[in-house]
């Protein structure tokens, strides 16, 4: 690095370096090191979603000293995004969000490289996600957030600390409870949600609603209006309809900015250890002035996503699978009733359904040596367990 570059770097990140070059009285464990500054420049960080939260997050990260940022989003820019997704301009309408956002940040913040991925998160495999040091989510789809959470938990390998990927999940509530929409509408928004969530599929079957098609919006508007009249609700308009189905109303720019800032603040703290992390859930509520509270979400013992960490068992490789099964039935801390076994997705023995049980039964009289090698990880399920047992069997 040349001297002039070093100077511009120091100037550019002067604000961040104030945090990283000094000792902290609040967090005395932190020791400033040059290595830390290098780390945030070189580590790869992934932003999922380039929408309302994503734009804010990308901007914040780029200005916090993260230089290798990736962004993934499957959407294209809609004209209704422009009021809050500030990395996009009118001329960008129709282009992929990830690509446009990346180009904007690359142009604006020199030295930062944002790499776009214009696809679904489910299109990427574990190899892709394992490249990143840290992942930040700015998604509104619960399903996608569940997916990434389960994927990252599944990638964890206790022998390899690099496989542990911190996930910072930012989100905002959207939508109304279904029962309100269906039975007791009180607001014009409830009528519009009813038209789009319930009536749409009744009338149009499998056809997907196109929220960019004025004809579809017009149909929703008219349907919502009829329902509003039945319940004496005022205020259903064409533009409100558009706003509700495109999720524009609850996503106020300021809320996005606050949520995204909290996420990036945590990202910087995790990456540099310059301050203690938030433990581990923060909620901001802007309805009644500015109110936030923080509490610890505790881990659920029988969580179907994260509870299946591996246990280890020693057993003789010369004994049969049936012996092993009997052993598990009697072992006091497991006491399985009817365990089924598989190895790397391939079944070894299944208790049901019948045709499978019959096909697998010969395996019961085989020795463990014949079926797998010492140190293999079996997946054991049983009706008594709400989750599965991942068990590494070592032959003795």
């Amino acid at each position, binding site marked *: 690095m040349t001297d002039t570059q070093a100077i511009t770097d120091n100037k550019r990140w002067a604000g961040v370096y104030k945090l990283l070059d000094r000792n902290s009285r609040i967090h005395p464990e932190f020791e400033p090191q040059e290595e830390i500054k290098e780390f945030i420049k070189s580590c790869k960080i992934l932003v999922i979603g380039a929408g309302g939260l994503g734009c804010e997050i990308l901007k914040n990260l780029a200005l916090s000293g993260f230089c290798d940022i990736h962004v993934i989003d499957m959407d294209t820019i809609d004209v209704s995004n422009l009021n809050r997704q500030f990395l996009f301009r009118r001329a960008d309408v129709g282009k992929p969000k990830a690509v446009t956002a990346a180009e904007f940040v690359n142009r604006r913040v020199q030295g930062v490289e944002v790499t776009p991925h214009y696809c679904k998160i489910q299109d990427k495999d574990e190899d892709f996600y394992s490249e990143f040091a840290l992942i930040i989510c700015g998604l509104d789809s619960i399903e996608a957030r569940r997916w990434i959470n389960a994927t990252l938990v599944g990638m964890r390998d206790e022998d390899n600390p690099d496989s542990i990927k911190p996930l910072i999940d930012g989100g905002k509530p959207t939508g109304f409870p279904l029962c309100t929409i269906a039975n007791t509408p009180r607001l014009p928004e409830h009528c519009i949600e009813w038209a789009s969530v319930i009536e749409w599929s009744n009338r149009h079957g499998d056809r997907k609603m196109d929220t960019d098609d004025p004809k579809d919006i017009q149909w929703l508007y008219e349907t919502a209006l009829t329902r509003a009249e039945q319940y004496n609700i005022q205020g259903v308009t064409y533009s409100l309809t558009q706003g509700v189905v495109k999720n524009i109303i609850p996503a106020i720019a300021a809320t996005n900015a606050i949520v995204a800032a909290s996420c990036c603040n945590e990202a910087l703290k995790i990456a540099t250890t310059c301050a203690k992390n938030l433990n581990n859930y923060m909620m901001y509520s802007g309805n009644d002035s500015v109110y936030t509270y923080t509490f610890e979400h505790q881990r659920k013992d029988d969580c179907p996503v994260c509870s299946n960490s591996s246990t280890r068992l020693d057993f003789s490789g010369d004994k049969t699978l049936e012996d092993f099964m009997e052993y598990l039935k009697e072992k006091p801390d497991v006491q399985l009733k009817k365990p089924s076994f598989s190895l790397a997705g391939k*079944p070894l023995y299944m208790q049901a359904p019948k045709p*499978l049980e019959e096909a697998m039964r010969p395996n019961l009289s085989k020795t463990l040596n014949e079926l797998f090698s010492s140190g293999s990880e079996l997946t054991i399920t049983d009706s008594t367990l709400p989750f599965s047992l991942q068990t590494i069997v070592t032959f003795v």
Partner: protein
Amino acid sequence: MIKIWSMKKENAGVNKNKPKVSAGQIRVQKDLTELDLPKTMKMTFPVPEDLLNFELDISPDEGFYAGGTFRFSFAVNGNYPHDAPSVKCLQKIYHPNIQADGKICLNILREDWKPVLTLNSVMVGLQYLLLEPNADDPLNKEAAEDLRSNRTNFANNVRKSINGGSVNGVQYDNVLSK
């Protein structure tokens, strides 16, 4: 993070690619062993090692479709239970909610799928569709209209179709239980 990062440097070269079992595979294993199948259903596994692809025969003992045996294919993808299993009817049958090419209109296979649902819920849903065809949500519009306007006529047409006869000029598969 910086700590994890330096640990990583020390541990460089530790085996990275252990074969991992996807959460979906575990769920399928659990779902399958906990199936509670009534007498009217039978499963077959073309490849027993492959838990993700199998077939289900449903032989309804009452309703319009009693006497027939209907075969469905199940394909579970790696995203299960986030994605619903993909299910098709393997025979050409006369049914308001099943298309000639095997496509099925069942809410829990589409918009109402939730990860808490299981293979068992889907199977029960399919049987229900055979017991109570739904004229309000049609894929085969003619069959739906038939059911709505004249149940006796619809019942006769179903009889004809499951015997391998034609209805409105369309020939259907013989699905009578052997």
